């Protein structure tokens, strides 16, 4: 069996035992990247020299027993909106085409401390705005299962890299489904943790109140182990939550007896692809057979999550992205007359159409006279959505549903109609509004052979319940 087929934890064990050298694993990944990238384009930047150098350093530390964790020496890919010191960080945007941070995102820094070797930075929708990775300024990423289809987004590069064995696991970020939906499209596993669990320091903000960093891996165990490493209370992030229950791997238990699982009827209605519906219901049945109590219920308010999300996320984005102005870093237009033209030209040349669309919408909903009608209305809706989930979690331990209404669409299909693309986020978006943890695990393929993902949603701080459910479900699919 090739090294590349190993999961992150399997590779970590082999590195620890000396069976596989770190450099060997890194070189295998780099070879695979060379082989696959022309067709997939999962990466914006691959830094071979850096990876090789890191491999040597990490190997020494493993040999000296200074690094003993399960992920020491395992190569990782990092989404390009996480700052990495001395390594190009672009957010897949022209406006940051040359930005080399002087600091590292806390989540990445935690990984490095655990001995991770960074291979490079993965492609994404520009500033994480999109659901297909087609809005990247540096070209689309293709779905490893079928290159005519999108990998999903915005963490499409990370998910495609994991699916094509171009890395052993990856980091993504999730503002409205950006880990869970591409995980579903690429047949990999991804977790969006409870808001505040992973530090946002060094994550280039899109919607600050919604953004979370999370792991993308080949299976639930890998994701739990990575989440355990990247989660930390960070004094540099005021929204970081101090938690004492970050031992997520302790929830890798093959047992769901008595676990109460609710399926929102609202998640099975109009717009949901029949094959996806069937795969999800089959998944629920499997968990029921393993002893879970499964029933359908009405979550309510589902159709209001998308409009509320687009108001809040766009408003925050319009403000977050105003710092890209050609003064301190990134693109400055070549020709301009005076300050204001410098701003306008730099930003107009630097941002792509989807980013401009959301910045403009955000500026509009916050502008004088509209703040109450749009922004406050959306925040009130968010409160109602949170209440609906609170009510649901009084009854259920886990909410189960699809991660996306369909399997991966063909390239070029989604961007024609932005609103239709936004509607594709219907099952993921409310989770971000309510700050909940959620996970996608593969649950089958459609008749074209494209993967389908099952979404498991937990109450705030209840990652362990979804990890247990996901792990148990995964065990039933061994060999499938």
């Amino acid at each position, binding site marked *: 069996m090739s090294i590349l087929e190993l999961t992150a934890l399997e590779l970590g064990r082999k590195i620890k035992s000396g069976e596989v050298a770190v450099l060997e694993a890194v070189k295998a990944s780099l070879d695979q990247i060379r082989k696959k990238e022309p067709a997939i384009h999962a990466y914006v930047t691959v830094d071979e020299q850096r990876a090789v150098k890191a491999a040597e350093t990490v190997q020494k530390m493993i040999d000296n027993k200074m690094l003993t964790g399960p992920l020491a020496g395992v190569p990782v890919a990092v989404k390009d909106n*996480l*700052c990495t010191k001395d390594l190009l*960080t672009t*957010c897949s945007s022209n406006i*940051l085409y040359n*930005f080399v*941070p*002087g*600091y590292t*995102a806390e989540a990445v820094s935690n990984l490095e401390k655990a001995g991770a070797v960074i291979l490079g930075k993965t492609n994404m929708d520009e500033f994480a705005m999109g659901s297909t990775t087609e809005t990247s300024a540096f070209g689309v990423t293709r779905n490893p299962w079928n290159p005519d289809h999108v990998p999903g987004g915005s963490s499409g590069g990370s998910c495609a890299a994991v699916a094509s064995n171009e890395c052993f696991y990856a980091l993504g970020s999730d503002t409205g489904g950006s880990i869970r939906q591409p995980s579903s499209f690429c047949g990999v596993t991804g977790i969006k943790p409870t808001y505040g669990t992973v530090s*946002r*320091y*060094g*994550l*280039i*903000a899109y*919607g*600050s*109140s919604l953004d979370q960093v999370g792991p993308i891996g080949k299976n639930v165990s890998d994701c739990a182990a990575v989440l355990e490493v990247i989660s930390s209370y960070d*004094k*540099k*992030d*005021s*929204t970081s939550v101090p938690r004492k229950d970050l031992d997520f791997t302790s929830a890798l238990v093959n047992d769901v007896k008595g676990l109460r699982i609710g399926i929102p009827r609202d998640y099975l209605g109009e717009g949901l692809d029949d094959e996806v519906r069937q795969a999800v219901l089959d998944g629920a049945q499997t968990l029921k057979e393993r002893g879970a109590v499964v029933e359908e219920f009405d979550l309510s308010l589902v159709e209001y999550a998308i409009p509320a999300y687009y108001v809040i996320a766009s*408003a*925050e984005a*319009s*403000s977050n992205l*105003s*710092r*890209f*102005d050609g*003064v*301190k*870093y990134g693109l400055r237009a070549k020709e301009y007359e005076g*300050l*204001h033209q410098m*701003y306008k030209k730099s930003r107009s040349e630097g941002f792509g159409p989807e980013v401009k669309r959301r910045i403009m919408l955000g*500026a509009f909903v*916050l*502008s*004088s006279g509209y*703040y109450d009608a749009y*922004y406050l209305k959306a925040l009130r809706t968010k409160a109602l959505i949170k209440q609906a989930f609170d009510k649901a979690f009084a009854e259920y331990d886990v909410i189960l549903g699809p991660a996306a209404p369909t399997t991966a669409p063909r390239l070029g299909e989604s961007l024609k109609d932005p609103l239709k693309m936004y509607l594709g986020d219907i099952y993921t978006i409310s989770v971000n509004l309510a700050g909940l943890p959620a996970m996608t695990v593969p649950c089958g393929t459609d008749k074209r052979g494209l993967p389908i993902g099952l979404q498991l949603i937990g109450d705030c701080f209840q990652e362990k319940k979804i990890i247990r459910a996901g792990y148990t479900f995964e065990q039933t699919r061994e060999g499938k």
Partner: protein
Amino acid sequence: MSRQYETVIGLEVHVELATKTKIFCGCSTEFGGAPNTHTCPVCTGMPGSLPVLNRQVVEYALAVGLAANCQINQYCKFDRKNYFYPDNPQNYQISQLYLPICHDGWVEIETAGGKKKIGIHEIHMEEDAGKLIHDEWENCSLVDFNRSGVPLIEIVSEPDMRTADEVIAYLEKLRMMIQYLGASDCKLQEGSMRADVNLSVREAGSPQFGTRTEMKNLNSFKAIARAIEGERKRQIELIEEGKKVIQETRRWDDNKEFSYAMRSKEDAQDYRYFPDPDLTPVVISDEWLEEIRNRQPELQPEKLKRYQEEFKLPEYDAKILTSSKHMADMFEETIAICGKPKEVSNWMMVEAMRLLKEHEQDPENMAFSPGNLAKLIDLVDKGIINRTVAKTVFEEIFARDADPEAYVEEKGLKIVNDEEALRKTVMQVLEANPQSVADYRGGKEKAMGFLVGQTMRAMKGKADPAMVNKIVKELLTKMI
């Protein structure tokens, strides 16, 4: 008959707080320093950086609010104020709009017209902007972010002032109060206290306010007084000509004694405020508030009263001594060493004030150590030097904090109490001035004064005048 107008003035006063670090990062607030040497990713708006609030900023804001008789918003939040400008690194300023920390207070001022309460509309916390240096050679501007993120409070008054005198009295009151609290040094010239003047005029007796303008760039009390007079005239002229005052921001040029509008079609003045998702609310418990209240130092009105009661100083003297926190501190430190409040007060009131006036300095500039003044008072008290010499010594203390004992020793300024030596000098003086001796004998008593003066001169002032008097008289009588 010409119409009578009333001027209505409200002030927005920005005060830089005396914290060691910036409001949202651990950079030093120290003044000066080469450009951008007190900066970090947070205060330069680097992507992915996040703010964390400095506790001391809240405590200073509360201290000022309590001293200004404000109501406290025990649940307050930070909002983003969005506008593009190169000194504003994120292109939004973190400030407070919806729930400022303090509101509805007042301070009492006193002018020739009597006592008056000026309402405080609100006090909010915010971050300062960077500094723009204009480079005439290259026709560009240079941005230095050393001041970016320095904590400010903005004190917004009600439109309660009617004259420049009231405005100056209000500013002096605020300055004194804040200096007493130790919350800022409030130096107008260095920009640690800045005032924007909102001014409108209306016909006397009119119940409605006129259209107001806001004037910026006022960096001395004199400039403020001139700007008020200039703007008042400008608005009255407009009204008399049948034109309208436009609500706008104007920049005062104190050299030209003229203000001009800061209008630009690129400025929409629509700040799109919304709560900053990167910061959590500040909740001020009753206990915390009580703690701040108990920690409040003695403020000027109480000190003024105490000086009169405890030290039996006249009201006038106590007022001058307490007009500057620094002077009051020096006064108290000196009497802590040597007692004698009357003596210390005299030196401060007469000699120190005279020298300050001579050197056009503020009491804040007094830099000598109280110990040296105490020593001086002791030297006079013990009759080691006389008052005339003491004045010269004080000048040395004032100018360069000279040690009076060492100085007196070095310059040989001690009073000569050796009667024999004194007798000898008097004899010489009498011999050298036969005419005066003859005049005295002829009944001109005045001549004795001259001879005493000559003796003092010969002794270089070091003789005890009483003793000189006695010897001169004795010898003159004897010689008859």
